[in-house]
């Protein structure tokens, strides 16, 4: 029998024997870890620790308590409301769109077109998006003018783009495509055999949805909604360009704080950031947990 010669991967140049076999491999990833420490871990950790300190550096829970003062609490509440509204709206519409394109019996070209456009549209956020919506639904916008010509004056009816609902609507422009992108694999996982089997056993369309689709899809649906929530919560550029400081969301307050210490208390600013990290961290953590759960059915 021929001797199998297996060329081992030689660490080259040879490491000193007291360092062990893995020494040169570790050197290869050191730059990454140094970068991660310098620009990811340490800055965040400093902010989080700073939230628990006062101006002299002593540990205190005062800043956390101060987060509940009216102006800051209301900013968190508005942020949560805008994020939740755009996340739920984006989730429902995104799910409906994705399901229609993938499992809704539409022609084959619809799905790749929707995916491509979602890929681009989910990146079209920030300042240009605010301009686009101002040009469309602002007082002089195209859609406003068109609706006016057909007799519907939305501004007289109480709509205002520079408001809570205007911002929510603008956020949904990138939330919906993001939902489509995240949910596509999950909808793919719904096997056609299940629909056929349920029809075979006499289930109506509604029963198919209630007893088969929703129980399987609710973890990815909920998880994606939470991801959308965290995504909207951390956004600042779109809001800054659209509503400026008139809508008092947390990111705008933090922006003003970084610019000019409007809270007159550095550590309160750190606590503000700490609150944000907590909320986005919890949302993303729940998303990851739910994603793990959903993979049972959707292989």
């Amino acid at each position: 029998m021929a001797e199998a010669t297996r060329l081992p991967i030689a660490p080259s140049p040879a490491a000193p024997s007291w360092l062990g076999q893995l020494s040169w491999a570790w050197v290869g990833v050191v730059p990454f870890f140094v970068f991660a420490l310098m620009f990811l871990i340490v800055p965040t950790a400093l902010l989080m620790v700073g939230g628990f300190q006062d101006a002299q550096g002593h540990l205190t829970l005062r800043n956390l308590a101060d987060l509940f003062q009216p102006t800051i609490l209301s900013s968190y509440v508005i942020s949560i409301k805008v994020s939740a509204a755009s996340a739920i709206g984006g989730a429902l519409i995104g799910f409906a769109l994705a399901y229609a394109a993938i499992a809704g019996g539409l022609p084959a070209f619809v799905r790749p077109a929707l995916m491509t456009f979602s890929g681009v549209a989910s990146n079209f956020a920030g300042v240009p998006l605010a301009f686009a919506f101002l040009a469309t639904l602002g007082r002089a916008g195209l859609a406003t003018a068109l609706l006016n010509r057909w007799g519907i004056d939305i501004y007289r009816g109480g709509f205002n783009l520079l408001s809570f609902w205007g911002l929510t609507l603008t956020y949904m422009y990138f939330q919906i495509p993001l939902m489509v992108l995240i949910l596509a694999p999950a909808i793919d996982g719904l096997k056609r055999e299940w629909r056929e089997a349920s029809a075979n056993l006499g289930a109506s369309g509604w029963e198919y949805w209630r007893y088969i689709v929703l129980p399987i899809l609710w973890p990815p649906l909920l998880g994606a909604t939470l991801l959308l929530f965290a995504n909207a919560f951390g956004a600042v550029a779109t809001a800054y360009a659209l509503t400026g400081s008139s809508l008092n969301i947390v990111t705008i307050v933090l922006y003003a704080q970084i610019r000019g210490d409007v809270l007159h208390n550095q550590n309160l600013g750190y606590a503000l950031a700490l609150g944000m990290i907590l909320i986005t961290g919890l949302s993303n953590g729940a998303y990851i947990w739910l994603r793990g759960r959903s993979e049972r059915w959707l292989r």
Partner: protein
Amino acid sequence: MTRGRLISWLLLLFGVLYFFVPLLGTLEFSLRYLRGRYSLTAYQIVLNDPRFLATIGYSTTLALATIAVGVVLVVPTAYWIQLRLPRLRPVVEFITLLPLVIPAIVFVFGYLRLYNSSSFLPLTGSERATDLLLTCSYVTLALPYMYRAVDTGLRAIDVRTLTEAAQSLGAAWSTILLRVILPNVRVAVLSGAFLTFAIVIGEFTMASLLNRPAFGPYLQNIGANRAYEPAALAIISFAITWASIGLIQVLGRGAPGQTVAR
């Protein structure tokens, strides 16, 4: 047509309207500069504005720097993780998830506290140093996408065999990385690069808080002061984003590991 299919078509119609009407509205608004007729005057004003060229040039330079730093950081790391340190994979993947969880504004806040003029590493002390800090901020933002792209690309090639073959021919590690691995993940790296480009060009928060003359703050400034030019800029910005992402799709067809249609 069944009722289900009708609903699907209606949803699709709604989706198409929702996505294209804002784009059309922006385009139409940008053509309205001269009263009474459509013209490209707003675009002419924008393209002739020296600040437009300056900020786009600055952002493009920074984007290229970000891509360079990102590639140098990510490719060796992903390679080593794949080849020799699989146990570190969860740690590295967690790190690359951090920029997706923690908002960008929080990172900048941390940098300003850690690297301000009175710290041990005063990166905000001079303009060049702040440019470096901004580049590293952008690398942070692009890290998840870059790592995922390169990791996927490395999984599609047989890293172990390539490395053993190169070593048996006497190659040093630098040669292996530069002349064997990198060309084989070229497509993945390029797709990560174009996504990074799109991210950096449109970025506002970090550039604004670090006070650098990037394209994002310029856009916001124009929007606050002018009426029709912002719409023109939005169209231009969207065209750049679409081109970058479109190039990714085009490139993606030439990736190794995909079956080639003959």
